[in-house]
């Protein structure tokens, strides 16, 4: 029992705001304890309390007991915890070296390499040699996620807190990562899983604790919970109802954005995107899916002018679009907006979120600052972010909250094409539905944006009119969503369709 994680009556208030209010939690060795709850309910805060890393101005009461020794941690935003000046290999070897100290010197090196490789394989980053020699910024979002996971796996601690470890991962990899977490627990480690991904939670967890606004509203084994949720919130949360069957839809209009023969590369590396052709029509919703690391983000960044190392052409309304944002005028900047995969890294940590969101309208549409704030507040509220929240700095917002703020920031430009990079990965099902509904409503409205949804979420993909599938930098399949999902040609598409079907079954 001494190995158990035990939290009793934990109360945390930060800046006069009660974030956690009497949380009780027990995580036993060898078991996966999942913490679920809407975005902003306090999952990450609880996780950080287990690590003993609450902000210095937090007022804490209650009891947190964690077995001695370090606690493994997979943070929600992997990018921020990866040292930008150290290669992936160095980051992992640093940890592995601690584990082999009792081996004779001569064998340490080999042992370290072996451990690193094993951890990478377990974290589903099999292409070790190329990954190890890269700097964190040279990895895709999902790859960074897995790198951090590999770090946690290497640690060999008795407790692992994994905060959204499967965001940014495609269905195939997600399943395998979940398998690894289960294996971890089987080694006698207490795994605390904080996640929105109910499929993973249901498959993995031995015990589920449901948080809501900082309180534990109920807990129990998953099957029991799914069968008989007691709290109405839980019911809503667990209800895996599909977002909406495609919602209202405008007739696809003329082609707005077109990429032709796009071949993108990074300095000194082979192309990560080869000869891609893509069209986005007005009012259309296009899902861009593919394995983690297949080049989705790169494609979106090329379109939005953040990555200009490419060959081929990108046109807006038939006119060539300058490859770099620096050369785009206000109108064209506004026309193509991009929502970053890592929301936290995309906000200035010093300024209130609201100010940052409102600036879009000021800069790109010439709105007066006062008016821009009003618009921003309204849009943020529609995304479920109240004013008190967004007046704070990004550090005081949860991952999901920031994701929504980032979306609002882009939307405020009234873009013609909105490129959304995994914007629902950090959201619980109700919030996700809400956000997607917001998006589809806006898209369907007059002058609404065409949506390009980069996603691993079958739900979100289902929302699309068309699906384009990327694999290894090439668009391998493209067509109407129904057709692609009904008769998938590519193995990846097939896996996606299966996953969709399975969640569909889950809904019952």
């Amino acid at each position: 029992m001494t190995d158990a994680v035990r939290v009793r009556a934990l109360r945390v208030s930060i800046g006069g705001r009660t974030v956690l209010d009497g949380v009780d939690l027990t995580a036993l060795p060898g078991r996966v304890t999942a913490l679920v709850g809407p975005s902003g309910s306090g999952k990450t805060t609880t996780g950080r309390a287990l690590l003993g890393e609450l902000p210095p101005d937090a007022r804490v009461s209650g009891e947190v007991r964690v077995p001695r020794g370090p606690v493994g941690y997979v943070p929600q935003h992997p990018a921020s915890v990866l040292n930008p000046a150290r290669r992936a290999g160095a980051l992992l070897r640093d940890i592995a070296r601690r584990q082999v100290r009792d081996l004779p010197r001569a064998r340490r090196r080999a042992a370290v390499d072996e451990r690193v490789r094993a951890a990478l394989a377990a974290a589903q980053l099999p292409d070790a040699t190329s990954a190890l020699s890269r700097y964190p910024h040279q990895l895709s979002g999902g790859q960074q996620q897995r790198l951090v996971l590999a770090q946690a796996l290497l640690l060999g601690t008795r407790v692992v807190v994994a905060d959204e470890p499967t965001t940014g991962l495609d269905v195939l990899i997600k399943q395998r990562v979940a398998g690894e977490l289960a294996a971890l627990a089987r080694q006698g480690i207490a795994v605390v899983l904080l996640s929105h991904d109910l499929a993973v939670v249901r498959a993995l967890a031995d015990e589920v604790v449901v948080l809501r606004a900082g309180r534990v509203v109920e807990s129990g084994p998953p099957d029991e919970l799914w069968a008989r949720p007691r709290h109405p919130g839980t019911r809503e949360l667990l209800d895996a109802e599909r977002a909406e069957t495609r919602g209202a839809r405008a007739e696809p209009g003329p082609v707005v954005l077109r990429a032709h023969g796009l071949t993108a590369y990074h300095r000194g590396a082979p192309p990560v995107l080869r000869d891609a052709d893509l069209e986005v029509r007005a009012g259309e919703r296009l899902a861009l899916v593919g394995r983690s690391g297949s080049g989705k983000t790169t494609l979106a960044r090329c379109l939005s002018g953040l990555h200009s190392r490419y060959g081929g052409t990108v046109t807006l309304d038939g006119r060539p679009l300058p490859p770099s944002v620096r050369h785009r005028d206000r109108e064209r900047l506004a026309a193509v907006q991009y929502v970053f995969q890592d929301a936290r890294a995309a906000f200035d940590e010093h300024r209130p979120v609201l100010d940052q969101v409102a600036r879009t309208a000021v800069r790109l549409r010439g709105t007066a600052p006062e008016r821009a704030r009003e618009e921003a507040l309204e849009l943020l509220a529609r995304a479920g972010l109240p004013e008190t929240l967004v007046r704070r700095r990004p550090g005081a917002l949860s991952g999901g909250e920031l994701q929504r703020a980032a979306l609002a920031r882009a939307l405020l430009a009234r873009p013609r094409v909105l490129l959304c990079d995994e914007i629902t990965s950090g959201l619980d099902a109700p919030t996700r539905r809400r956000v997607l509904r917001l998006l589809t409503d806006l898209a369907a409205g007059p002058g609404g944006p065409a949506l390009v949804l980069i996603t691993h979420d079958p739900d979100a993909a289902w929302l699309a009119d068309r699906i384009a599938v990327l694999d290894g930098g090439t668009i391998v399949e493209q067509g109407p969503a129904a057709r692609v999902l009904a008769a998938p040609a590519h193995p990846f598409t097939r896996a996606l369709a299966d996953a969709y079907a399975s969640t569909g079954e889950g809904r019952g």
Partner: protein
Amino acid sequence: MTSFRPWILRRLLTGLAQTAAVVVLVLALTEALPGDAAVALAGDDPDPARIAAIRQALHLDRPVHERLAQWAAGLLHGDLGTSLASGRPVAGLLAEAFPPTLTLAVLTVTLLVPAGVGLGVLAAHRAGGLLDRLLSTAALGVYAVPEFVLGVLLTAVLALWLPLLPPTAVGVDNLLARPAVLVLPVLVLLARPVCSLGRLVRAGMADALAAPWSVHARRCGLPPARVRFAHALPNALAPAAQHLARTVDWLLCGVVVVEALFAVPGLGTVLVNAVAARDLPVVQGLALLFGLTAVVLNLGADAVAYRLAPRAEAAA
């Protein structure tokens, strides 16, 4: 990273152009000084006839650009020309003055890097703490003291009051043969850069240690020393590397004051004398040397910055 080499190559080429610009700039400035080598040689006996004769003997009556062209042509054959004041080859003159300066510079840098970085890391260990404040204040104090004051103080105490060290290197032809004479100059040279480097490292370290990835590294059970030196330090070093390059440059070219105080006959002394004597070939030779050193050092510092901030491809 394969593009690293062409980058260096391009930088070296622009470096050559830069060096040429340095030479021309220095030449133009020296030429703009009142008087010329003939006037300087004549000194307090400025007999016009004598000045005219010297001028003719030194070919100073020819236009500057002609002399520059001739110098440049000589340069292509590896000939730096002859000193106007002494009639000796410039190359030999510089070769004579270089070893003392190089000795001082190498010694100083060898001590400077560990000392400066160590000081910065130590102060950043608990930014805002007592140790930090003490170190910072002391460093600032020392940094604000010009060499000639520090030199006077150290000499008074260490060489005259407690006669531990020789106060000057007067008459010592080979500094390495009498290492004791190097102690005071190196101490004085070291004092300011250690402080400035230490402060820059401290600032960078304090930021780096507070960054989430440092917290995560600690969380991953890495020993504090490893977090500090392997993780935080590289991120704190980019400005420090720039500063170091400047310091080395300064050590090689600008230690006029220390050379004067301790009677070390190095490049700084040659420089001051050459300017005073309007000895253009020597000044040009020095400018060439300084230009090349600066190019190489800046390149080095940029390469370090490039490596330390890999995300910043713009550095290339």
